[in-house]
């Protein structure tokens, strides 16, 4: 519901058509860039985590959409370095508004680094979900898993559909 309201007020501001039907949302992610960023070049899981694959290292965090739906993050629990993560299994949790939310790993692999800044500054997840709020760096054990994740356009549509569900 909120997505449609923002989209229509943004459309008003830009003097675009105010009827936000799906046929007007092309390219889909151009409107979402105004309020809940979805970045090109990243891969996305349907549990709202992102993966940035660079060479033999994959960086993982949660998306702008996810942090917005969580509220202000006050505590982050991360795995130990050298531990293993598995696709679609929990690797940690964040706390916001008295809710502990598990974070699921989009891929399997070995944790080579965790973002220690999140201990003292958990709010980085809210203010910089794709940069300073990164959570873990992983050496992927099955790079093919990345193929099954969503790209930016697909993830944007996924978020819109999810938000429209209620």
């Amino acid at each position: 519901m909120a997505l449609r309201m923002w989209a229509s007020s943004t459309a008003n501001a830009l003097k675009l058509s105010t009827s936000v039907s799906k046929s007007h949302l092309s390219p889909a992610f151009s409107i979402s860039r105004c309020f809940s960023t979805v970045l090109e070049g990243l891969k996305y899981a349907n549990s709202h985590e992102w993966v940035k694959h660079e060479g033999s290292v994959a960086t993982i965090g949660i998306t702008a959409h996810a942090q917005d739906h969580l509220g202000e993050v006050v505590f982050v629990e991360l795995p130990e370095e050298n531990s293993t993560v598995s696709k679609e299994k929990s690797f940690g949790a964040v706390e916001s508004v008295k809710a502990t939310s598990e974070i699921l790993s989009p891929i399997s692999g070995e944790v080579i680094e965790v973002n220690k800044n999140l201990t003292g500054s958990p709010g980085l997840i809210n203010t910089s979900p794709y940069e300073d709020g990164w959570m873990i760096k992983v050496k992927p054990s099955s790079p093919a898993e990345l193929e099954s994740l969503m790209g930016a356009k697909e993830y944007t549509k996924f978020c819109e559909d999810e938000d429209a569900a209620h």
Partner: protein
Amino acid sequence: MRSPRILEVWRLGTVNYLKFLKIQDKLVSERKAHQIPDTLLSLEHPPTYTLGKRRTDHNLLIPQSQLTKIGAELHYTQRGGDITFHGPHQAILYPIISLRSIGFGARNYVETLERSMIEFASMYGVKARPGNKCETGVWVGDRKIGAIGVRISSGITCHGLAFNIDPDLNYFEHIVPCGIADKEVTSLRRETDALLPSEEVIHKQLITCLAKAFSYDDVLWKEDPSVILDTQR
């Protein structure tokens, strides 16, 4: 046409905390596997202090060794939130529901739990409000009447809310409730002169407020609690 959203409600009476955790674990697995619909447990605990994932033991103001003397237990949980007390005459609701099917994140979920309690309080003329930033829960003025602490795993909720009907508020003296110092705890009994009906009626009203807030089409009241209480199955 979307299919109707049903909430199955189990009213379990007084349940020991560890036993409840076993029941909850089983139901969460079943909900994740789509073996059960959205489910709600309505119950009370004997005097019990619980801590959240952050394990803020410093907010327990008496030594753990003293707890048996005052007839209370202490348990560590994986929920969000700080230390709290559960006891007789406090209505507890534990929703085990799918947030993905309603597109809710933690914030919407918790705000809807707050709204449920606020709506319920208004039935007795009590004007409650949601907490300020970082003070999640339900307040009457500066006095806390309802607490929330939840966990969300793969989009399925567990733990939940506790609303003070008429618990022994002295138990709250032994903690810094929810980690918020200098704020009182209150109860429905304290905030209204209205005649309170039986607790069974009160719990049913609170459940109905929650079902309405989450837009359930129907509530299925499960009659035989032994089905769920028998965790050996």
